[in-house]
Every structure is written in structure tokens, then in C-alpha cells.
């Protein structure tokens, strides 16, 4: 099959998957039911509002509800589904009301997403920096002692709950404050039990301390984000404020370490398998027979071929990151998209839950598409 037909076929497959995704999100909406969705919209249950009024408020928010036999029910599921789908694709994603904030869902995502990007990119860079050399080293020596250590390391990555690892890091290295990095209102309050190393802040991304001290134009207090990119690390560099940059960096250490450990295990295993696979090939034997030095064989012949299937790691990485950031953001009170998702879910914010489910689904689908296409481009055998 030619590459362009492969890409076409692979892209078309996304359409039914996307429709299925909307059906699933709609089932979630339907399952939540009008009562909980109303509770999400109006979180003050003390005020006794008649059901007809509740139904009216629900329909103003895009849910066709009515009172039947003294109970609040959804009416017209088909119509509601099509309304819902058209709303989803037009980017009309409703509102998050009350908890954890009041804003249009899309705007809330826009403000929280950069924080997650900062965390995810940090973890990706760290994971690749560690996994590439380590995987090459281990993969070149299968069944050696270092391979066994690597296997245990991978295994513990699967067996550790991410939130627990985060908590352990706090117990060891945590500091409640900006801890010797200057400019903190809470100062240095060591919480971790390791002396001298308990300097790493574990609450948020550092912007929490800005509200009183930051200059105008650098900090927007509405959502607690820096301007203009909302990524604290980059904004502090743009503004030329090195002390802010250090604060941002200090806040990243523990969350990034936690996420990295979670995704590292899978990547390491993958690279090792690729190396072992490639080293059994005939051209490797030929290279050795020619008298190519062992270091060159590993670098030029084995690793280059092992890295090819590692492209699929990208898909693995993204899905691992999207899942991993949720718990890590909760543990570290790091206000990213995963934090928003859990807060929205716990507060019955229907649109918040649906929008983030949908968004994550699309991100993962597009990543998988890109991975497949890149892989097909690099390895013609895959275009079945």
C-alpha cells in the first residue's frame, strides 16, 4: 500500500472512534442525571428551589430537562445528543460553576493546560534523558547484573502507585514554603525528614506566592496564572526575573520526579527489548566480523535500528503522562488539567468532566495517528 493511502485509511478510522467517544461522553452525561447536574450548577442546596425552576435552569444550560411525576428527568435523548455533539465540535463547552472555579469550561482548560504542559514536557525530557542511555547500556548487556537491576527498577515502576511515590518524596524532601529560594511568604518550613535536602516545595507550581508580590502585567489573579504564556518557567525568563525562575524550578522538582518515574519503566523496557532484538540481526554479526569496534557496533548498528520501534514509545509516553499527571497534580496541589478534572468530577461539574474526557481522547487519538504515520514512513513493511 502506498503511504498516502495508508495515511488516508488511518485518518478515516479516527471518525468512528471519535463518534464512539462522543457516545461514551453522552452516556456519562445521561448517567449523571439531571439532579446531580443541577447540583453542579447550583451548589447551594439550602435554598429550596421548585423542580420546575430547576428544569428551567437546566435547559438554560443546554440540558433538556422536565418534571415528570414529581421527578426531574431528561427529555428527548436523541435531540439532546445531537445538540451535545454540535456543541462539542463548535467548542461550546458550557460552564464550570462554583467549584473549583467559575468560568467557561474552555477558558478554564486554556488557563490550566499550560501548567500540565510544563509538567509533561519536563517529565518527557527527564524520562528520555535517562531512558535512552540506560536502555542502550542495559540492552547491550542482556541477562547481566545491570540488566537484573534494570528489570527490578522497571518492575517497581509498574508496582508503585504514583500518588504514594509523590507522598514519599514529600516525606523525604518536602518543604512547606519556598524554602531558601527567596521571596516566599511562608519562608523555610522543612517537612521532609532528610536534613539539608528537605528544601523542595510541594504545593502548587510556585505561582501561589505571587499574588501579593508580583508586578502588574506578570500575574493574573483571576486564575492564578502568569502572563503571557501561563507557563511560569517561561514567563519568568521572558520577564527576566531569575528569582522567580528559581522558584518555578524548585516547585517542579518533586512533581517531575514522580511523573518521570512512572513513565520511565515502560520506556526502559521498550528500548531494552528493541536493543536485544536488533543485536540478534545478521548485519550486527557482519559488522563484528569486519572488526568494527564494539562501541561503534552498539552505537551505529544496534542503537540506530533499536530506536526505530521506539517511536511508538511516544504514544506510550503520552498516554502514560495523561494518566500519570492526574494523581501527581492532586498530590502536589499542582493546578493543571488533571487537577481540574478531579475537582470537576468531585463537584459534579458535568461540562468539566465531559470536556476533559473528550479533550484527552482527542489528544491520545491524534498522537496515535501521528505515531502510526511516522512509523509507517520509517518502516515500509508496516503498510499492510
Amino acid at each position, binding site marked *: 500500500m502506498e503511504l498516502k493511502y495508508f495515511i488516508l485509511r488511518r485518518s478515516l478510522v479516527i471518525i468512528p472512534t471519535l463518534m464512539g467517544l462522543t457516545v461514551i461522553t453522552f452516556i456519562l*452525561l445521561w*448517567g449523571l442525571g439531571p439532579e446531580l447536574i443541577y447540583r453542579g450548577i447550583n451548589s447551594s442546596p439550602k435554598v429550596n428551589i421548585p423542580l420546575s425552576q430547576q428544569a428551567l435552569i437546566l435547559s438554560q444550560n443546554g440540558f433538556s430537562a422536565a418534571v415528570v411525576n414529581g421527578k426531574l428527568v431528561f427529555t428527548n435523548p436523541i435531540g439532546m445528543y445531537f445538540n451535545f455533539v454540535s456543541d462539542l465540535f463548535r467548542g461550546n463547552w458550557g460552564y464550570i460553576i462554583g467549584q473549583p472555579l467559575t468560568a467557561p469550561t474552555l477558558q478554564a482548560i486554556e488557563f490550566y493546560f499550560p501548567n500540565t504542559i510544563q509538567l509533561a514536557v519536563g517529565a518527557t525530557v527527564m524520562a528520555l534523558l535517562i531512558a535512552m542511555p540506560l536502555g542502550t547500556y542495559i540492552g547491550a548487556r542482556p541477562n547481566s547484573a545491570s540488566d537484573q537491576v534494570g528489570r527490578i527498577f522497571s518492575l517497581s515502576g*509498574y508496582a508503585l502507585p504514583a*500518588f504514594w511515590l509523590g507522598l514519599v518524596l514529600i516525606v523525604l524532601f518536602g518543604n512547606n514554603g519556598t524554602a531558601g529560594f527567596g521571596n516566599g511568604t511562608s519562608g523555610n518550613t522543612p517537612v521532609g525528614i532528610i536534613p539539608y535536602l528537605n528544601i523542595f516545595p510541594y504545593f502548587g507550581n510556585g505561582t501561589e506566592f505571587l499574588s501579593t508580590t508580583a508586578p502588574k502585567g506578570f500575574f493574573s489573579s483571576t486564575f492564578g496564572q502568569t502572563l503571557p504564556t501561563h507557563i511560569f518557567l517561561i514567563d519568568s525568563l521572558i520577564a527576566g526575573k531569575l528569582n522567580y525562575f528559581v522558584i518555578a524550578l524548585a516547585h517542579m522538582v518533586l512533581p517531575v520526579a514522580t511523573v518521570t518515574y512512572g513513565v520511565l519503566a515502560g520506556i526502559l523496557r521498550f528500548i531494552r527489548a528493541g536493543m536485544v532484538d536488533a543485536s540478534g540481526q545478521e548485519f550486527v554479526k557482519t559488522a563484528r566480523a569486519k572488526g568494527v569496534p564494539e562501541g561503534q557496533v552498539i552505537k551505529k548498528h544496534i542503537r540506530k535500528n533499536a530506536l526505530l520501534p521506539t517511536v511508538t514509545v511516544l504514544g506510550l509516553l503520552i498516554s502514560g503522562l495523561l494518566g500519570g499527571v492526574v494523581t501527581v497534580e492532586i498530590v502536589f496541589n499542582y493546578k493543571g488539567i488533571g487537577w481540574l478534572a478531579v475537582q470537576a468530577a468531585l463537584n459534579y461539574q458535568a461540562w468539566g468532566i465531559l470536556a*476533559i474526557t473528550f479533550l*484527552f481522547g482527542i489528544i491520545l487519538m491524534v498522537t*496515535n495517528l501521528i505515531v502510526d504515520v511516522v512509523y509507517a514512513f520509517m518502516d515500509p513493511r508496516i503498510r499492510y
Partner: protein
Amino acid sequence: MVEDVIGTDLLDIQGEKSYHPRTEQLLATARSFLSYKASVVGLVITAIYFIFALVDWVYPAILGIPAATFNNMTTYSPFAIGTISGGINNDGIFRPGLAHGFPYLLGGTIFNFPLLLGMIASLRFDIGYSVLVVFTGAAIGSSVGVIAGYLGRWADELLMRLTDIFFSIPFLILIIAFSLAFTSFFNSSLTAMIVALIIVWWPTYARLSRSLALSTKSLNYVEAATAAGSSKTRNIFYHVFPNVLSPIFVQISLDLGSVILIFATLAFLGVAGSQISNYTFPELGQLISSGSSTFQTTFTGVHLGTPVIWWPIIIPGIFLLIFTVSINLFGDGLRDALDPRLRK
């Protein structure tokens, strides 16, 4: 049966004790499994955990845990167990040590819940529901997968697209959303969470068994069965399904560990609502989160205990880690033992 006769004859010639070929195969698998030391250790530790969970389920009083249903919150109340005079420090926290009696050997949470009892009591919930989720998911998934893989064509395509959807949403988000959406339907957040986990879990098994069925159905013996007049249904359940089972059991053993982690994570996030995020319900993740609340409250100014109370976080976590690592080791060994090509 023909192979019975041949098998027995051959073994008789060699002068060894003869068994049924199936028994022989089982023994070979067992011998192979026993040669992996790490996996045997994993099996033993896993078995100990399961025994604790079973004893706690059948007769909790043996372990000093009050008999109670899961709905009876008061029996597990920290204040019911924890009111031992003189056992509490000034800050109201049990510290590890034997000074306060056996249940407090590993200390207590900030709510005076004895950790040792809490951890053992949580096994019933954690292991019991993990087994429920994984086995139900595996049963549904593998049946669907084998049928779709055997029938091929549209059934196969449909299954692949359906599982694509489930794999395209990060499962934690999906579980949280599902368990919330189903809470009002089942009138119980716990049931909703279990159902949500099963919904999220079956596609893995469907994919796995589908690919296994695809490779099995083209094997000669299945074609021979078809030629002998075996129907499609008979082919699927008598000839293809048994050959798909062993990789599925390996996957089950590995997944038991993952589901416990997810339970812990969900309890930590407080997803299952009052039923398990309540401080009176024993669950490993909930025990850990009750420990973590010590320094999450520090930020709001209430600093409970200096130095930091590490044991309610570290100890249940290590307890959980030992289980997940053991079951992973066991699963790895099982995979190698069940696959004759990997045998030493």
C-alpha cells in the same frame, strides 16, 4: 484415546512412572515454574496476602478485627478501636512501637486508627474486589474477543473500533467519570466504582484474546475439527477457547496488582464518595491519604505533629508495594512457565 495409549506406552518403555499426558504437562509447567526462585517467592507472599484476606472475610475476630459488614461504619470507627487510655501522645497520634499493645505495633493514623489492623482489614476489600473486577473483566473480554477473533470480518472490525475508543481515554479519567455517572443508577458509589472498573477493564482482555484467537483458528487441528463436522460454536468453545486461556491467566495475575493500585488511587482521590473515602473504612489508599492529610493541612496552618508523621504514609505503601511486586513476579514466572518455548 489414541494419544493416551501412545503416551503411556512410551513412558513404560523408559521405565518411568506414567501419568496422563495432561498431568505430565502440568507437572512440567510446575517444575518449570519452581525453577524461577523469584517467582516462587512472589507466589508465597501473594498466597499469604490472600490467606489474610480470606481469614478476615470468613472469621475476622481471629485477627482481632471486629466482625462487621462493609456498611457498618461504626464498628470500624477509629474512636471505637482507638480509645486506649494512655496510648496516645500529646498530639493524639500513635507512634510505632509495642508500648501501646500489638495492634499499634506499626503506629496509628492521625485519627488513631491502628495501622496494623487497618492494613489487614483493608486486604478483604482490596483483594476481594480486585478479584471480582479482574475475573469479571476477563470473562467478558475474553469471550467477546475470542468470538470476534474467530468470526473475523465485521465482528472483528467492530470490536477493534470499540476497544479503540476505550483505549483513547486515559483510564483513570474514564473510571472517575463512569463511577460518578453510575452512582445514582446503582444507589451506591462503591458498586458504581466496581462497575466502572469492569467497563474499563474488559477491552484489554478482548484485544488479547482476539489476537490469540486469530492465530489459533488457522491452526491445523481447528481445521481438522471443522472437517470432522464441528460447528462454529463448538470450534470456538471447545477448540479455540482452551488454547487462549493460559495467556489470559497470566494477564489476570498481573492485573490483580494493577487493580489494587487503582483502588488505592481512587480512594486517595476520594472518588468513591463517602463509602470509602470515609476515615472509618479500611482501604490501603485511604490509610495512606489519611496520613497525607497531615501535611496537606500544614499549608492551611494546622501543623499536626512535628516531625512529620511518616508512618501512616510509608508503612501501608510498602505493604501495598510488597503485594504488587510479588504478584508481578508471580505473573512473570507463570508466563515463562506456561510458554514451553521460554522454558529453560
